[in-house]
């Protein structure tokens, strides 16, 4: 019976939810994301409370440049879409295409992360907007940095899954793993949309 | 298990007895013996909630005692199977609705009083004119209190002098960590936060007295030693106290030789942090009327030995003669012999700029005053124009009713 878990043939419609373990993972992960929502909500709350507390340091509309952030947003949104394709191919039991689309997702993730690191570097060096500059800067780097750390963790996770399953197909054991990784990726994406709005747009306008 | 209830009753009776024996605490500390407007309002609310709650408790206990008495397993019929009741809609509705009603009875005055206690708008006198507000900037620091009478140009520490029967307004901020200003006999407490979250409250003492004040928010090792006093004297006495305090420059020459030497030592070593007079310096406690203090640093016996000890240990002290652990005076740089410290003590102990001191709060003499002499005319007119809008809104209420000032205020608050 245990071997059935690792077979790649005759997969059901939704291999990620075909087993009790899969259903548990699926549901547990949704709840986990519920907790993550509270985590980010708390960080957003802190940020909103401190967004005008710039002390002597620069204010939001002095440092933020929307062009780069807009590109980052597009990159991350696209990566969410590509991960949907990957899941589509997983359900069709087409591991090669799944790996391909996951690869694209990861690549986009790296691009995003690279931009973010550049962005931070730029703020620190051109605006003297460091982590300890003001309460606002601490809140900004903590909120956006937490998101960045989530992206980095997601990348390691997906790459790990890709390597581990490079030589075997989709099966009942790894399908839930791929699926929740993609859920996580969507979640990160949604959080970014809020960051884009609350941190950057409101920072530039308000 | 017959002894079950009687044991409970016995222990309960003991506790009640103990309560009766001890009274309700110190009359100048206990919230159960209110002597101020705020404490009085809260006391009423307290009694109301206790009565409601005791009613609920009584109902619960009657049912509780009854079921335990009545429905114990019968020895002769241990296999008896009771009826497996699922519930009872009427009963369940009853014990949902009744608590809601009881809570509403409590909620209404709660909201009313919460707003009333937060009201810091100026008082009006019997003619409906706005009176001058005595604003006091309260600063909390590890582990002492500073009081600056904003418009009166008087500063003091540790002992807050206020007039009775007249509201004073406090604006509170902390120099370091969060403290909480609490004078249970006069009013509830209010946190004293660091910069950015200034709090305001009012105090109105209805009886003369020296009230105990406490810090009620953990603020470090000497949190429990951060006591202060509120000296409530009659308005006339307060007026005199303020005038006396205002006249202090810090340069008055003491009478005795030792004190004069002490003054010089003080000016060379201590004046950087401790002000005498109305200087805004808040590094250390203001010592203008140090001679009238009843306790040293809020909690210690007021005598020369302790003052010398304090100066020499900077208020900290070793194991065995600890004073205020964690006291911040340790940053001070000075090197004095015990004799020199004694001279400083001598100087400080004769700093009694006013005839008004805590004893005046304890005696029975009452001097009335509207305190108007404390507020020069020009300032008054400025404030008048500010307050005009508010008073015009409220004038209708005031016109209809000829009640005493106290009740009038309550109306405005509503």
């Amino acid at each position, binding site marked *: *019976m*245990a071997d059935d878990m*690792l077979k790649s043939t005759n997969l059901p419609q939704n291999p990620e939810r075909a087993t009790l373990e899969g259903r548990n993972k699926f549901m*547990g992960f949704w*709840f986990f994301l*519920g*907790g993550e929502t509270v*985590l980010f909500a*708390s960080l957003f*709350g802190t940020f909103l409370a*401190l967004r005008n*507390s710039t002390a002597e340091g620069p204010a939001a509309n002095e440092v933020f440049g929307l062009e780069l952030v807009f590109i980052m947003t597009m990159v991350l949104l696209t990566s969410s879409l590509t991960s949907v394709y990957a899941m589509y191919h997983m359900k069709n039991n087409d591991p090669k295409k799944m790996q391909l689309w996951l690869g694209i997702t990861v690549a986009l993730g790296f691009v995003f992360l690279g931009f973010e690191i550049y962005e931070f570097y730029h703020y620190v060096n051109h605006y003297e907007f460091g982590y*300890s500059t003001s*309460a606002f*800067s*601490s809140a900004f780097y*903590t909120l956006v940095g937490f998101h960045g750390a989530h992206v980095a963790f997601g990348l390691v996770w997906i790459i*790990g899954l890709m390597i*581990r399953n490079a030589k075997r197909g989709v099966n009942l054991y790894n399908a839930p793993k791929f699926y929740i990784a993609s859920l996580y990726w969507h979640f990160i994406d949604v959080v970014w949309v809020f960051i884009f709005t609350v941190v950057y747009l409101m920072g530039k306008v308000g | *298990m017959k002894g*079950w209830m009687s044991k409970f009753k016995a222990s309960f009776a003991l*506790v009640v007895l103990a309560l009766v024996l001890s009274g*309700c*605490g*110190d009359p100048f*500390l206990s919230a*159960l013996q209110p002597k101020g407007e705020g404490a009085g309002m809260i006391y009423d609310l307290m009694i109301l909630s*206790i009565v409601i*709650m005791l009613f609920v408790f009584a109902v*619960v206990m009657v*049912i509780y005692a009854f*079921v335990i008495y009545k*429905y114990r397993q*019968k020895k002769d019929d241990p296999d008896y*199977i009771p009826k497996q009741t*699922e*519930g*009872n809609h009427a*009963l*369940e509705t009853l014990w949902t609705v009744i608590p*809601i009603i009881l809570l509403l009875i409590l*909620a209404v005055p*709660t*909201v009313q*009083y919460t707003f009333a206690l937060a009201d810091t708008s100026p008082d009006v006198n019997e003619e409906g004119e706005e009176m001058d507000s005595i604003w006091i900037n309260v600063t909390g620091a590890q582990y002492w209190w500073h009081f600056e009478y904003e418009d009166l140009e008087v500063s003091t520490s540790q002992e807050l002098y206020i007039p009775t029967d007249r509201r004073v307004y406090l604006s509170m901020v902390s120099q370091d*960590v*969060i403290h*909480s200003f609490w004078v*249970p006999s006069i009013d509830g*407490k*209010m946190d004293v*936060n660091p910069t950015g*979250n200034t709090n*305001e409250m009012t105090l109105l003492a209805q009886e003369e007295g020296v009230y105990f004040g406490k810090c*009620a928010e953990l603020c470090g*090792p000497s949190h*429990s*030693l951060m006591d202060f006093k509120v000296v409530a004297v009659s308005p006339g006495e307060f007026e005199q106290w303020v005038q006396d305090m205002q006249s202090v420059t810090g340069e008055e020459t003491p009478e005795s030789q030792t004190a004069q030497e002490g003054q010089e030592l003080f000016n060379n070593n201590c004046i950087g942090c401790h002000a005498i007079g109305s200087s805004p310096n808040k590094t250390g406690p203001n010592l203008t009327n140090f001679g009238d203090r009843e306790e040293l640093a809020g909690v210690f016996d007021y005598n020369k030995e302790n003052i010398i000890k304090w100066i020499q240990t900077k208020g900290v002290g070793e194991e*065995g003669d*600890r004073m205020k652990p964690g006291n911040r005076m340790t940053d001070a740089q000075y090197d004095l012999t015990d004799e020199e410290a004694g001279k400083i003590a001598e100087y400080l102990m004769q700093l009694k700029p006013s005839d008004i001191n805590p004893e005046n709060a304890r005696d029975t003499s009452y001097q009335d005053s509207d305190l108007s002499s404390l507020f020069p005319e020009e300032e008054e007119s400025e404030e008048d124009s500010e307050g005009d809008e508010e008073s015009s809104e409220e004038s209708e209420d005031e016109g209809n009713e000829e009640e005493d000032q106290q009740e009038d205020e309550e109306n405005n608050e509503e």
Partner: protein
Amino acid sequence: MSTTARKAGFGATLWDYLTTVDHKKIGILYLIGGFFFFLLGGLEAMLIRIQLIAPDNEFISAQFYNEVLTMHGTTMIFLAAMPLIFALMNAVLPLQIGARDVAFPFVNALGFWLFFFGGVMLNVSWFVTGAPDAGWTAYAPLSIFSEGHGVDFYAIGLQIAGFGTLMGGINFIVTVVNMRAPGMTYMRMPLFTWTAFIASVLILFAFPALTVGLFLLTFDRLFGANFFDPSMGGNVIIWEHLFWIFGHPEVYILILPAFGVFSEVISTFAKKRLFGYSSMVFATVLIAFLGFMVWAHHMFTVGLGPIANSIFAVATMAIAVPTGIKIFNWLFTLWGGSIRLTSPMVFALGFIPTFTIGGMTGVMLASAAADFQYHDSYFVVAHFHYVIVGGTVLGIFAGIIYWWPKMFGTMLNEKLNHWFFWLFFIGFHLTFFVQHFLGLMGMPRRYWKFQGEQGLDLFNLISTIGALFMAVGTIIFIYNVIVTQTKGQKVSGDPWDGRTLEWAIPSPPPFYNFKQEPLVRGLDPLWVEKMEGDGKIKPAEPLGDIHMPNRSFVPFVMSLGLFIAGFGVMYQGGYWILAVIGFAITAGSMLYRSFKDDLGYHVHKEDLEDEEGDGSNG
């Protein structure tokens, strides 16, 4: 199984517990860990009470006193009450819903080890730098200014333990949602399962706020952030909000499972179905829901203004309604019953008046204006001890005694249990009842010394005497446990004449719990079978192979890694190497866990007949 394990020698037993993923053994681990910290917290409480036995006492120093009071609160809430509740949840919840294990056995073990290492980390602070001294609430900026590394231990230790709790919460939510036996509908779940389920939901949504708060505190203290530094634009009130957004639901996380225990105990020993079962469930959900909207009632004196204060005051009062419903439902469960005064029942009966008082003072505190007097005084101390000791602790002990036979197969001595109860109960009221009055008489909480001649002497003395009674009671309980386990006299699977599924299987249960999945035919399934059937639960499936998870040492290693890393982050400089090593261990074990397929194993049905548990080795 504990019997075989004992025969297997100490080393093997230790290894068995270090690597177990069996919820019953994890329950025992939580019980041991939680009880150890309970004793530690109790010791700290005794130091507090001895210091306050007389005015102006010099028994311990001010700094040490602040460390003791901080650690007493932190230990009791996070390291004693929470894990003891997790102990009961682990031991009982899967059995009550007819499951063979929890949804995530591996995560379950990980949750325990994270809690364990977090707790150890907190207490290591005593020996290396001095314990945290800013109160269990760690209000900024006192917690920022606090010297040494005490508060860093608080922040990082709780962070680690908090991750564990969060995982445990998710695990139980999914267990309840996905793993219920056939016929075990939501509205047939025992009330303990319901309350544990709701408490888990609260954990899920409350703990992340603490996580963020602790991160901000850590960043401020160790990495130069300015969240709580007013001179750099920071705001200290943010901490208070974050802490209480977590902290208030935390109270319900602690009390709801205790409500569940009492519901089980009262129903069993009154021989009656729980009165108003559905309203009990409804009340539980409502309490949890309202619990998230009342956090600012801890902050009435902060200066939020009368509008916010009034809203939170009224919302808080509303919680009294569902709580009242519960009290009356218990009373009417007793009404018309056949009450057996066993020791768990005596705990439950002691709970009712005690908790009613705690609830009453809760409503008094909710009255915002009046709270200006109560806040941060001994009145509050009395109130939350009435709720947490009178509710949670009595509930935990009722639960431990009630389910002891199920967990260990032995029965604690009833007579000693009654002694324990009476000493503890009387001691409790002596200690805390007078504290209401101390508070109203002007004694603020967290006071190292109180001044003489301010009318506070007598009640403080009474309070200390009461604490001694509680200590003696607890010692009797420990003695009882030792005697009982040494004797090791076995009892049947159903020694209390129980009503729920866990009593349908042997004590202690086999490691796979149910040979065949049970078929549930109503609320109180065992009672239903006792009344309408032959007293045995019907199987829902034919005898077949049982799938079981593999044991694993990874949870231990993963948690150890974070424990090591914590020191590196804290001490920095050359110690960064510790952080590198620690995080490498954790990351490495996570990778190991993901790269190595773990499919579990099967117990074959042929082996089930004679299988009386030779461990869960795969």
